[in-house]
């Protein structure tokens, strides 16, 4: 591990401020857990990006899912989604009021349950599982997002010199596709262990220093050039791109995936109920700025006070494996330490 810290120090000396965004929430977790920011020279800044599916799910999607549950539509969702505050309540609160909501470890638990609607969130890594459900005829309310469109927007809004590309998103979409996406920055696909991240950061700084807009696959043992083509094929067969709304970022063209079959798209099947969801309310939570890397959790006056993992005011405090606020709370350090 020291080898790369020394190499980073050597190459970074004499460079101005270098701003690197780690897109994936899993990377943010490793970086915080091992205190990697504190090991880097002062001019190397790591910025946490939007890679937390729970965090970027829009308030209106959460409210719509809650509305479905309150209107007696049996629902299913991954555990983290249960705790995200909606404008009036969370899915957990709706459940306490008698709504039928099943918390899933795997979509396999509902693969034969055709009456249930799956509230689907996640990036490319988690989409194949939803595709499998759709192929079995299960109805889905999809908030699935694609990571590259968000990266393209963020580079136009703030100074980012390079990206640590997400590891398991790349397992699905592959290494080669990154070179076709027109993201005008150097990128390194990284694993999750601290030594892997330090090596990826070193390689990225080399690319940045030499002004090489290239993609390095530094996670070859898990990321193949073409990715998982069986998963890609099922996604293509069952889902289509749409203009998804991201918390804090807004609507981005072709940045999400919804069911191809309108009969399995809960947004259409239950349009009347979904349209009755309450309008999103602003409670002062700054999660939207945090997912864009604009501010840090401690810049929010609610952080650790009114807003804690037990009583989250917003989505960034919910997932302690990916949400920037929950991670910062867990490790008791700010993102820049």
């Amino acid at each position, binding site marked *: 591990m020291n080898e790369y810290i020394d190499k980073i120090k050597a190459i970074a000396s004499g460079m101005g401020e270098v701003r690197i965004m780690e897109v*994936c*929430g*899993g990377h943010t*977790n*490793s970086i915080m*857990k091992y205190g990697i920011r504190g090991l880097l020279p002062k001019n190397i800044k790591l910025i946490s990006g939007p*890679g*937390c*599916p*729970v965090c970027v799910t829009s308030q209106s999607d959460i409210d719509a899912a809650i509305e479905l549950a309150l209107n007696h539509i049996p629902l299913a969702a*991954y555990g*983290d989604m249960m705790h995200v505050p909606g404008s009036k309540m969370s899915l957990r609160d709706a459940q306490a009021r008698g709504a039928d909501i099943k918390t*899933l*470890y*795997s*979509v*396999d638990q509902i693969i034969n349950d055709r009456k249930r609607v799956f509230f689907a*969130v*996640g*990036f490319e*890594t*988690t989409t*194949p*599982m939803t595709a*499998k459900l759709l192929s079995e005829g299960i109805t889905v309310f999809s908030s699935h997002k694609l990571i590259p469109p968000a990266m393209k927007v963020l580079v136009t809004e703030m100074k980012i010199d390079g990206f640590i590309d*997400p*590891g*398991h*998103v790349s*397992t*699905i979409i592959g290494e080669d596709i990154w070179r076709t996406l027109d993201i005008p920055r150097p990128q390194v696909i990284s*694993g*999750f*262990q601290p030594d892997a991240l330090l090596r990826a950061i070193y390689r990225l700084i080399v690319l940045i220093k030499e002004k090489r807009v290239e993609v390095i696959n530094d996670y070859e*043992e*898990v990321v*193949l050039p073409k990715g*998982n083509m*069986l*998963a890609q094929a*099922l996604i293509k067969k069952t889902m289509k791109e749409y203009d998804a709304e991201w918390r804090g970022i807004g609507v981005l063209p072709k940045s999400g995936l919804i069911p191809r079959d309108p009969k399995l798209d809960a947004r259409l099947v239950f349009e009347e109920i979904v349209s009755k969801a309450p309008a999103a309310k602003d409670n002062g939570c700054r999660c939207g700025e945090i997912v864009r890397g604009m501010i840090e959790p401690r810049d929010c006056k609610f952080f650790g006070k009114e807003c804690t993992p037990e009583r989250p005011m917003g989505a960034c405090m919910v*997932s*302690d*494996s*990916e949400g920037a606020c929950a991670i910062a709370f*867990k490790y008791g350090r700010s993102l820049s330490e």
Partner: protein
Amino acid sequence: MCLAVPGKIISIDGSKAIVDFGGIRRKADITFLEEPKIGEYVIVHVGFAIQKVEEEVAKNTYNLLAEMEDE
């Protein structure tokens, strides 16, 4: 949510497999694997195997990822 944990395929029944994660055995869907075989190592994300990996890779990554998934 994008974390994936490595394990070893113990048995296969159609599109399902039993995968051993360092002593804990769970069912995993293997729809997205090309020609999965007993004894191979895979990484599993929310109950689905998404990629085969070498044994060494699985063992190296096991500890860190299992720890993070549990948190």
